């Protein structure tokens, strides 16, 4: 078993220190209290500030606990805010791919559709924002499960339903599929939720690398995949571009 990481121990000590006493300390006070070099204390405070666990009082320059700590206990990303931030990019993905676009988050073991843009062919389509999709049977869900070990374990407590002969339900097969998603950085569902339909998706990550959503396209399997159910590279590139653009957008807000 590897040893403990010193900088994390020190960061925890800084947080405990700020949580006690007056709650507002200067960099030198922190360094002296914990026996750290001033540069080290400053580096830790700055890093904690960047991730939102520490805030700096603008007038006094003193440090206090940040709002980010409170958010640890509540859902991290508001789906409505995600939709708003991502809208230019999800629209652009629909315009370029010619397919319908969805942005999904994992919630209570299934994929909650946070945003939906129509396929740009002006055919009759119905918005399904707020609808749910089975996580193990769609590309968005596989992306979200691949980066959330806890959710996978929870999901596999009960047998998973098969929607088509191609739905991956066996625990071992699903684990292998998710490992593949982690390696590749994208997921495909080829006729796994509905015969004739396929989906491609890629992860949307916050600045710390946490996967908070998946963005993807859905369409006829022959348009999205080749004869052996592999995604068409041009479409896959568009999906990954959109995921990266949305991730950048999250990082800057």
């Amino acid at each position, binding site marked *: 078993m590897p040893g403990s990481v010193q900088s994390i121990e020190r960061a925890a000590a800084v947080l405990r220190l700020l949580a006690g006493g007056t709650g507002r300390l200067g960099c030198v006070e922190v360094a002296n209290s914990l026996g750290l070099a001033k540069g080290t204390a400053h580096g830790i405070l700055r890093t904690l500030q960047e991730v939102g666990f520490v805030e700096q009082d603008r007038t006094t320059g003193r440090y206090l606990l940040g709002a980010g700590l409170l958010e640890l206990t509540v859902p991290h990303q508001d789906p*409505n805010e995600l939709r708003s931030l991502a809208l230019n990019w999800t629209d652009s993905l629909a*315009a370029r791919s010619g397919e319908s676009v969805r942005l999904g988050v994992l919630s209570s073991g299934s994929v909650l559709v946070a945003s939906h843009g*129509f396929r*740009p062919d002006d055919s009759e389509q119905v*918005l399904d*924002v707020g609808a749910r999709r089975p996580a193990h049977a769609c590309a968005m869900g596989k992306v979200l499960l691949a980066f959330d070990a806890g959710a996978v374990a929870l999901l596999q407590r009960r047998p998973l339903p098969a929607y088509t002969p191609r739905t991956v339900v066996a625990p071992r097969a699903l684990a292998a599929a998710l490992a593949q998603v982690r390696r590749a950085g994208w997921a495909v569902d080829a006729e796994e939720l509905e015969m004739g339909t396929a989906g491609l998706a890629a992860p949307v990550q916050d600045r710390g690398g946490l996967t908070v959503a998946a963005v993807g396209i859905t369409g006829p399997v022959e348009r999205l995949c080749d004869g052996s159910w592999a995604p068409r590279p041009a479409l896959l590139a568009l999906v990954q571009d959109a995921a990266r653009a949305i991730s950048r957008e999250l990082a800057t807000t």
Partner: protein
Amino acid sequence: MQRYVAALDQGTTSTRCILFDGSGRLVSVSQAEHQQHYPRPGWVEHDAAEVWRNVTRVVPEALERAGAAPEQVVAIGIANQRETTVLWERDTGRPVVRAVVWQDTRTAHLVQELAGDEGPDRFRDRCGLPLAPYFAGPRLTWLLDHTRGLRERAERGEVLFGTMETWLIWNLTGGPDGGVHVTDVTNASRTMLMGIDTLEWDATLLDAMGVPAAMLPEIRSSSEVYGEATTVLPGTPIAAALGDQQAALFGQTCFAPGEAKCTYGTGSFLLLNTGTETVRSRNGLLTTVGYRIGQEPARYALEGSIAITGSLVQWFRDGLGLIRTAAEIETLAMTVEDNGGCYIVPAFAGLFAPHWRSEARGVIVGLTSYVNKGHLARAVLEAVAWQTREVVDAMDADSGLRLTSLRVDGGMTADHLLMQTVADVLDVPVVRPMVRETVSLGAAYAAGLAVGYWPDLEGLRRNWHRAGQWLPAMDEQRRAQEYDNWSRAVARTLDWVRPGLPDGD
């Protein structure tokens, strides 16, 4: 070789350049903000020279981001903040004063004087507008009255007037060295100086406002080649100019009478195409030019503005602190089923279209101990929807056209619950297009049309695609009941500020 149209969106806070391809898809964006100057309460100014410098920066940057060479740009189209007044020296190109921005209220007293005994509708027949501090003409009068020697210099033709598009076109086409001094019919229709039927500067209006004709630009169509750029993109035709809200109408391809769009931002602007007819409003709306393509007859529009929409959500966030981000209002509203009997009427600075009651102030009514913050969030979103309904009703009454669907754009269209609520209270489908940047797209369309990049309006219509649609899902009885409740809430805002007393005393 891939070819593009460049749209310049000269807005209130920033100047942007967006490149569009032949399918009307956004290719690249570049943006630069300019400083807001507030020299006195109620005064808002921009430095026109700074705005021009930003244009010379954002255009090359947008090309660079698209990896495009200047010769790949077939035309430039301009959409601009409306009613902002710029004055500059013909010989040097230097602004004489800072540009006076559309939000500036320094002409409040002047427009009252101009209205005199005949009231604010004194010029409505001629120019389609009521006298209000909003429009460019009185602003020009104010500057001529308050700047020493300016009127004499203007009469001698030494000082030129324009709104932002005029200033940019003049600079793009050479400035002091042969710059073209033109405006388009949509921008001219916001000055109060143009005859709404003649589409020419109106001698009676110029006389009433003391404006020398020598300083005015030539009025041209919204879509025609005004000249070639001599700088920034040398040789590229400048082929369109429209006020931003008219550009959004064009970008939404509302080309047929009865088609309407609403742009949901800080405030919201609903424009209805009324065809070649000028409809004089009896319900507090503005008559304006929608667009004019080349030598075709001008297309007119009715405009209704809603002062407080996005800013109501901002107040809910910053004033009440009940949410952290604007988008969270939807999350909070979804925690409850309905408004719990609570209504918010945001008459923060009086009621605007169609009521026009400046003494009204905002109310929250129907409060009981049952009401929680979720209900308040619902009431905020419903207030945006009901205000839209009031403007739509006024438009239906004025135009005799019945709205069959509403095209929406702007930041608030990301709010799913709000869009559903708008569809519910209007009882028509609400449709969001694939390109959210409809202002820039409209300028690009009008420019591309003038140089043959797009063949005709039908070609543009084919580029328009639905990205989302909300269908009405409220039963008629409930809608009628809610509208009645809303109207009774509105009635409770009236007569709050008493003449001669400060607010609320």
